């Protein structure tokens, strides 16, 4: 618990990566911080933050009530998502001999996106295995190894290539525990970048969250921040079930603040629990992976227009944290779902159905869905921009849900 005392991390600030308030420079400041701090109206949401975090068992730290005489650490450490994944892999491989990494270019090339940098040197070619370009073959081999008790981490260079191996992910991995009535558990992780990158065209840009999340027997995780990446990857590797771990190439280079607790090698996030990135009271915005960043930016814009948005980072698509989503909608009464993938039969459709089933009476407006365009991903930059959700799309949808599309003056 020492870590808790030394850090004070506010949810919003951490996720945006903005620096924490400067350290006190005089004893007067230490004793009477109230007079020196910029006074901002603490929203109900912020006060709720503490309570909500306790309720949801979040791992994020809360600002201690009496913090004057304690020493604050300097601004929390910054870590890229890439480093977060690398360190998680490193620590889990170190902790459990049965964990091994397999995929194209994971070894000598140091990883196509450098996620597995340094692992070959550290663990050797028996545990970090470069495969030929044969997804069906090596995914099957990995599942077979998992049958026999090892814990493979299979890297797909992108999840577009996982379609070549999808029979093994679904039929050999996901269903085996059920078909064998518990004899054959499959502790495997399939990970890699998912969704749109930049200008890579239709065959390299699809989001597979909805496809994999529809299959019972799989767990599907979608980290956003470095904390998510570390905690969820560790949880995935330790989990005895097949996990599809959908990363995002454009997030690999982004830096986020991480606390000491996150950096600890035993750090782990629970699977199936969403995180409220920003507490609000007017409209709920659910998002996952890269779209969480867009949703947070949209929330800032909406705040200027007097709409206080609550942003939920889903973290886990299967199991979906329906209780967090529904509790939020029951509070705000309005919902926007945001995802990058194709709209039809997508994650947003499932969330909408879930909310309609469980919280229909609480809805004050129809559920809004923001998703990728219903077309294969085009190459031209302007078309690509139209095919992927932008911040203004989320803002517009939120305003619609709040019946504020038209300025109030005009409505009067």
């Amino acid at each position, binding site marked *: 618990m020492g870590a808790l005392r030394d850090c004070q991390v506010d949810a919003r600030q951490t996720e945006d990566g903005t620096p924490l308030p400067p350290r006190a420079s005089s004893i007067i400041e230490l004793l009477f911080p109230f007079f020196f701090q910029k006074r901002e109206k603490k929203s109900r949401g912020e006060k709720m933050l503490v309570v909500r975090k306790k309720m949801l068992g979040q791992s994020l730290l809360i600002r201690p009530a009496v913090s004057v005489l304690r020493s604050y650490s300097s601004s929390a450490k910054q870590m890229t998502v890439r480093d977060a994944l690398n360190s998680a892999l490193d620590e889990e491989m170190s902790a459990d001999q049965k964990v091994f990494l397999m995929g194209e270019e994971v070894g000598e090339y140091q990883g196509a996106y450098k996620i597995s940098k340094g692992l070959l040197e550290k663990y050797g070619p028996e545990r970090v295995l470069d495969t030929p370009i*044969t997804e069906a073959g090596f995914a099957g081999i990995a599942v*077979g190894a998992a049958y026999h008790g090892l814990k493979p981490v299979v890297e797909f260079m992108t999840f577009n290539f996982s379609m070549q191996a999808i*029979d093994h992910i679904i039929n050999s991995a996901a269903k085996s525990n059920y078909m064998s*009535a518990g004899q054959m558990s499959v502790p495997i992780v399939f990970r890699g970048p998912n969704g749109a990158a930049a200008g890579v065209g239709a065959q390299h840009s699809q989001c597979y969250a909805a496809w994999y999340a529809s299959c019972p027997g799989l767990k599907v995780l979608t980290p956003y921040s470095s904390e998510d990446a570390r905690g969820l990857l560790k949880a995935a590797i330790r989990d005895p079930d097949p996990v599809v771990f959908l990363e995002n190439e454009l997030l690999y280079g982004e830096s986020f603040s991480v606390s000491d607790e996150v950096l600890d090698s035993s750090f782990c996030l629970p699977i199936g629990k969403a995180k409220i990135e920003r507490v609000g009271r007017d409209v709920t915005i659910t998002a996952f992976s890269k779209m969480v960043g867009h949703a947070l930016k949209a929330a800032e814009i909406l705040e200027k227009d007097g709409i206080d948005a609550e942003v939920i980072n889903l973290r886990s698509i299967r199991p979906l944290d*329906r209780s967090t989503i529904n509790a939020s909608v029951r509070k705000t009464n309005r919902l926007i779902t945001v995802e990058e993938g194709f709209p039809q039969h997508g994650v947003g459709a499932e969330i909408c159905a879930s909310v309609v089933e469980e919280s229909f009476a609480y809805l004050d407006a129809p559920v809004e869905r923001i998703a990728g365009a219903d077309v294969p991903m085009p190459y031209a930059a302007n078309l690509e921009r139209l095919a992927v959700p932008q911040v203004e799309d989320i803002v517009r949808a939120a305003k619609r849900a709040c019946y504020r599309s038209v300025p109030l003056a005009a409505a009067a």
Partner: protein
Amino acid sequence: MPTLLSAWFNSHQPNLHPPSFYSLSLFRSSHPPPSPNPTLAMALSRFASSSRSGSLLKPLSSAISLRRPISTDTTPITLETSVPFTAHQCEAPSRTVQTSANELLTFFRDMALMRRMEIAADSLYKAKLIRGFCHLYDGQEAVAVGMEAALTKKDCIITAYRDHCTFMARGGTLLEVFAELMGRQAGCSRGKGGSMHFYKKDSNFYGGHGIVGAQVPLGCGLAFAQKYSKDEAVTFALYGDGAANQGQLFEALNISALWDLPAILVCENNHYGMGTAEWRAAKSPAYYKRGDYSPGLKVDGMDVLAVKQACTFAKEHALKNGPIILEMDTYRYHGHSMSDPGSTYRTRDEITGVRQERDPIERIRKLILSHDLATEKELKDIEKEVRKEVDDAIAQAKENPVPESSELFTNVYAKGLGVESFGADRKEVRATLP
């Protein structure tokens, strides 16, 4: 005395050399080690037969009414396989095999049990007690039995959907088989798998897979895990001539050869991939050669001793040199599954021809009788016993209850995390996954 006996025997030689594609070639070692069994009949028969090679003797016991038990004799008997092995990129093992009376009788019993089990499954399917798919293995028993004889339980076996007999060979019980086929609780997968999804992990039997060809990369993965854990054991991944053309097989073989995995790929070539004959499906039906850089062996899959010999050879090879392919030349009497009569793409004459000339159980019966290891009556008694066992198991399985409704939601995950799952009407039926 010996002369009188010889004279008597000579006049009572049964014809044990019917015309066949694969002639039985037998010789007995001239100086067998002394047997611990002192019964008169055994001593006399051994004396009499050692005086001439290839002799076919009617057992003395029937003439002098001596009650002789079924032999548990483990004295080595040396025999030859039906045909020599054909090799690709390796040296074929010898066609001379060592066996014993005990082993031959065990083979006979095991294969008879499997045969009876599959025939009974046929009837159950027609009585609609078995639903869905039911792929029967009768005709191919020698592969399952011979392979098991060459392996230990540390070695892994994985196969496709024609898995009932392979499961039995790995130590499964008849009750587990019939209960699973009928979807009952006592089934090996508690009724949740069905015919195509038998597993017995404690015997390293990994199923039971419905997707053609998928089991081959999985099997190579098992071999990877064995090498990783330094088990000094091997994996046998079985597939059919239909699956032999699957791309993922070559992907897995490539990786296995690169990484020297102790994987043995066994093609159970019964010459038909569902309704498609091998010459219509494979440009090169020499499946044992299709490994290219990987060595291969062609084996008479209807000769249990040849299968055992090949598997022993393959195991040794794979532990030292990486993957090897075994092509078992075998045959299935039934169609592809119970929905297939099996006679639209092949003639009935072909089926009866194989049954008469190559049947694995008949081969062993002839061997046993010709070597005087048991009487015909004793073998018939074994078959009766086996039939009764099967009938009892079926009766027991019929009494067994179907799974509880709550089983719908068990084993979705190994660790359910208290997550909710839903039935068809989610407002009616919800469950928390344990």
